[in-house]
């Protein structure tokens, strides 16, 4: 009995992960901060912008940054800061749509392909490979040609093109989870495949989903910028960081700041989502909990 007591004592010495407040990881803090700033900018743009971001003002063309125009104006006299605020909406919209489409289809597909009989899983994955071989931007341009250029159309296309990345990654994770003894135990307990997928596989591949989602978010933001740059993304006059970059191109030698501000915004937002993904993965992994 005394040995049992020792075991109990050891157990109580192990800190309770729920109650103890752990120091927040740096990446989570910085990533969270950046993403909140982008989110804050988007919310702010609904109620206030210093100027109308779409107002063309020939008398204030290519103004330098000043108290009136914080980040200056572009070649049409539109306020750059106001455009950045409005553009953050497009950026968030773009990320959520693309990642949403990719994850909602890709994750279940990956789990099914990992749990199904081997031949069926392989069949799904070969189809997946076909889609994977198709360039995302080309698919987006095709969609734009068929359905007309627009942010939503472009991002649904980017989302569809990202499905194979999710499916492939999640299938790999699922195959690993399905080999574990806790899944065998669940089967022996009488759990059906649906419950095993939902209660065991999904939580255990969730860190993969989070990381892939943050990467996907970053890719989507870049893709939107690239498509807008090519004229297949967000149509004018809706402000978009990508199109701001494109419009600054011809002014690059005379007014490089027009490229710098949206460029920094894109880079920092992409970095923020990546950091947030890393931080969330570490935080959600209960095994890492006590090691920090």
């Amino acid at each position, binding site marked *: 009995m005394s040995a049992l007591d020792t*075991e109990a004592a050891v157990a109580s010495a192990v800190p309770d992960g729920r109650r103890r407040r752990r120091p927040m990881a740096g990446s989570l803090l910085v990533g969270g901060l950046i993403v909140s700033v982008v989110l804050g900018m988007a919310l702010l743009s609904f109620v206030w912008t210093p100027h109308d971001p779409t107002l063309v003002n020939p008398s204030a063309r290519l103004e330098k940054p000043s108290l009136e125009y914080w980040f200056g104006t572009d070649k049409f006299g539109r306020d750059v800061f106001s455009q950045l605020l409005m553009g953050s909406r497009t950026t968030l919209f773009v990320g959520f749509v693309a990642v949403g489409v990719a994850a909602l289809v890709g994750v279940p597909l990956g789990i099914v392909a990992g749990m199904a009989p081997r031949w069926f899983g392989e069949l799904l994955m070969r189809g997946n490979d076909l889609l994977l071989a198709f360039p995302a931007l080309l698919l987006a341009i095709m969609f734009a040609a068929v359905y007309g250029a627009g942010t939503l159309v472009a991002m649904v296309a980017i989302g569809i093109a990202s499905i194979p990345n999710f499916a492939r990654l999640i299938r790999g994770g699922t195959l690993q989870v399905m080999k574990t003894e*806790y899944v065998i135990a669940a089967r022996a307990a009488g759990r059906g495949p649906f419950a095993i997928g939902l209660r065991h596989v999904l939580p255990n591949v969730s860190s993969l989903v989070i990381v892939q989602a943050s990467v996907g978010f970053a890719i989507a933001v870049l893709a939107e910028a690239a498509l807008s740059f090519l004229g297949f993304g967000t149509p004018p006059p809706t402000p978009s960081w990508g199109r701001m970059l494109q419009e600054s191109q011809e002014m690059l030698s005379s007014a490089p700041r027009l490229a710098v501000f949206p460029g920094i915004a894109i880079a920092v937002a992409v970095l923020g989502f990546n950091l947030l993904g890393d931080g969330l993965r570490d935080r959600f992994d209960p095994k890492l909990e006590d090691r920090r």
Partner: protein
Amino acid sequence: MAEQPTSATLAPGSKTGPVDAISVRDVTRDYRRPRTSLLRPSPPVHALRGVSFTIPQGQRFGIVGESGCGKSTLLRILAGLDRPTSGSVAIDGRDITGLRERQLRFVRERLQLVFQDPMSSLDPRMRVGDIVAEPLVAQGHRNRRERVAELLEAVGLQADAADRYPHQFSGGQRQRISIARALAPRPKIIVADEPVSALDVSVRAQVLNLIADLVDELSLTLVFVSHDLSVVRHVCDRVAVMHDGQIVETGSTEQVYEEPQHSYTRRLIAAVPTLGKALSGVSAADLNREYRP
């Protein structure tokens, strides 16, 4: 599911009085390795070749053998998680070979497993309470919270363990959680696959005693698999020795231990380290030389 016994499922028990908890008849299981040659199919691996035994209700049956002898394959087949290539397995007199998952419900209710590695047999993302309650959820039991608290107490864990995650427990405690989960749906048969092999020697005896006590208390049938004969001797009444996918010897634990008939069994027993042998300078290398047939 249809629960009424058919004439076929009752057959083994109808003549011999009480039905055997488990009866295994001439079970074989072949695996196919991935092809290594374009021209010839790869040779099959015979994991089990003609295994037969019966375990009466309430017996503690040990299966001993080295790793790779087919023990784990046999367990998976007993639990209805794998299908034999040929032969048949009956649980409580009902043949389970060739049944669909939905028809295996009675096996899920009557037979539960305890695994070797308490690290990988508990889902790291689930709270202990949910892990223990899983068979109850799967089988639609009510009053799960009370049952979980009762089970945790029965295996010597505190009630607040239910809200914590598996990694917050030691190996011995995790194996207790695993045992609690196995007992949750009130099974009649417990199949334990090397339940103490991954544990420190210091907590082995505790977990073994816990298993032995619970089996007695709840009058369960125990199938206990181990590579360690001394562990099996501690817990089991009868033992089968497996080698190369076959059972080479069966008998009461004392009989097999005191008068081993098969040369493999003799080697296995000689491999159990004792203080006397260690002091007289016997090394592992001597085993093969002395006891090879």
